[in-house]
């Protein structure tokens, strides 16, 4: 296998997600009454970025062969916290942002500690921590409300040079500053290795515990970034259970669309980001085709079903029936 062929194979999931997104987005803008304008892109970006952050957070846990069912609740909790703290003078606002991010990271680290040192299965542990995070969010905001520093909010949800959506730039910055260094570091490699085969990684002396803990912590941090942006878009904090649940479930869908293996050890947060953007675009396609919004959940479900059925094509490559069982 030549070098470029190997690299292509490694990034096939990410590239597929990118292709799906591009096709969907072209269909979307081609049929949008306003066409391919800065305004349309800004709206689409602002909608997509939230899910992209949450999907990126989910990816970090999924590559360690875990799953984070509390990610939507961390997103809500940080949203509610931001609606209290990210206000006032620039200094106060900056302090608020830092506290919100730190709380997100702490939530992620708590999940990680329970899974790694408590040795509980991630799926049940995060169901329980999710309930706790939602409870705290509800304590902070029993009713929707609060406010946010509107200068900062408008700057981060507006456009740079009247063309590029600022939220997309922020997303790219987070990918470059958090995901890329992490995935190339020793700890990132250890997180991948632990997801691929924990026993082998342990035997090879990789720092799997610290790698996994870092992955969970960064996951919480990125989910908190999503919560911050939600506050910037809505100007309020709202502990809505259904919304947190939906983000958790959609993040899993985005991760799958983005070519990240739920068995761990394979995939990239960049793929998940494109998966999230594609998923959001699919939801919006209905509006440009002027269909009844009632059909949106069914349409999203069917697209999701079609996307995952593509994964079943791998069956045709199976030579030995024992390969069915991994």
């Amino acid at each position, binding site marked *: 296998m030549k070098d470029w062929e190997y690299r292509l194979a490694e990034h096939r999931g990410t590239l597929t997600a990118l292709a799906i997104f591009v096709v969907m987005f072209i269909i979307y803008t081609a049929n949008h009454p306003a066409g391919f304008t800065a305004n349309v892109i800004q709206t689409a970006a602002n909608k997509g970025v939230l899910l992209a952050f949450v999907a990126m957070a989910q990816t970090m846990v999924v590559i360690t062969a875990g*799953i984070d069912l509390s990610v939507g609740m961390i997103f809500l909790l940080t949203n509610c916290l931001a609606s209290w703290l990210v206000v006032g003078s620039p200094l106060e606002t900056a302090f608020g942002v830092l506290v919100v991010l730190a709380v997100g990271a702490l939530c992620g680290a708590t999940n990680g500690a*329970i899974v790694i040192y*408590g*040795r*509980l*299965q991630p*799926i*049940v*542990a995060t*169901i*329980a*921590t*999710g*309930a*706790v*995070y*939602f*409870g*705290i*969010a*509800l*304590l902070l905001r*029993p009713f929707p409300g609060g406010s946010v520093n509107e200068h900062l909010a408008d700057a981060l949800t507006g456009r740079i040079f009247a063309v590029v959506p600022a939220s997309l730039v922020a997303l790219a910055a987070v990918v470059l500053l958090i995901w890329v260094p992490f995935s190339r570091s020793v700890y990132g490699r250890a997180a991948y290795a632990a997801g691929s085969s*924990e*026993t082998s990684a*342990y035997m090879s002396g990789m720092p*799997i515990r610290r790698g996994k803990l870092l992955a969970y912590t960064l996951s919480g941090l990125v989910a908190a970034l999503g919560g911050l942006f939600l506050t910037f878009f809505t100007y309020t904090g709202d502990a809505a259970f*259904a919304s947190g*649940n939906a983000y958790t*479930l959609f993040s*899993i*869908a985005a991760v*799958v669309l983005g070519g990240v293996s*739920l*068995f761990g050890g394979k995939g990239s947060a960049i793929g998940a980001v494109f998966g999230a953007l594609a998923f959001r675009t699919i939801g919006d396609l209905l509006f440009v085709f002027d269909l009844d919004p*009632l*059909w*949106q*959940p*069914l*349409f*999203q*479900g*069917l697209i*999701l*079903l079609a996307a*995952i*059925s593509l*994964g*079943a094509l*791998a*069956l045709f490559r199976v030579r030995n*029936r*024992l390969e*069915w*069982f991994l």
Partner: protein
Amino acid sequence: MSETAMTRATERKQGFMRSLDPAVLTAFGCIVLLLVLGSFYSRSFLSPEYLLQQLKVASFLGIIATGMMLVILLGQIDLSVPWTVATGAMMACAAAAYGPLGTTLAIPFGILCGIGIGLFNGVGVAYLRIPSMIVTLATNAVAQGVMVVYTGGFSPQDSATAAMRYLATGALIPGIPNVVFIWALIGAAMVFLLRRTGFGRAVYGIGNRERAAYLSGINTRRIVMTAFAASGGLSAFGGVLLAGYASKAAQSMGDAYLLPAIAAVVLGGTSILGGRGSYLGTVAGVILITLLQSILSVTQMPEAGRQIIYGVVIILMLLLYGRAPASR
């Protein structure tokens, strides 16, 4: 008493002790602890009326958790519970609108819709080899979509049939609600299935190692598919009963059952990785979750505090007995 009879008796006793998982014992211990704590708050926690009422509320969760347990024993998970419950309820109520025939067939029709969803999950997991978490997530989304289109986004106007109401709220023997009977029947059937049939052994075998089960000649794919179909049917039946209880179906009636069902099964000592667990444990888990929710709501704790305590208690109990072995 002869020597052999003595040894046989002790052997049987040891066998009985062995079948008592420490996890199940802990779960029952926690139930007693909760009741004692509750009785400090109010004497009525130990009254038969309160306990029967709790058992009645627990039955709905118990029926749904039975299906979930079957799937978890295989090492899979069923995330399609929320809208399978709602689909079962809505379809049963919808059938009731079609004259006498519809009224008679309302309950079977609701359950059949659930089995259909479950079969779809099962085909995806067993034959197409898609991870269960994804398939069931997608079918949940599709079921939600179909129901939203069908109802127009509102709670449907059709109401439950008399039979559904009778099953959910009536009492054949005065004092003991029907729904408790139904749960007991389903539970007995499940225990028989798991402990006395080839199907049950195969479920445990697949949960331990599907490859080994396949090599020993078990048609693993058919068993996995059947288990998912059963889970769908039981969820839908739970939904039918819930609709009877509230005398109508509602949009998000199933949302409150997914996580408690998983938590109940896991708290009862069933391994989330599959292959290990007893139905007695699931019963304990269901009662534990129901009591916990009830006590938290009786003490007038605000919703926020309830969620936090609920989560913390689950984590603590799992730390007590749900831990995986350390890496070697």
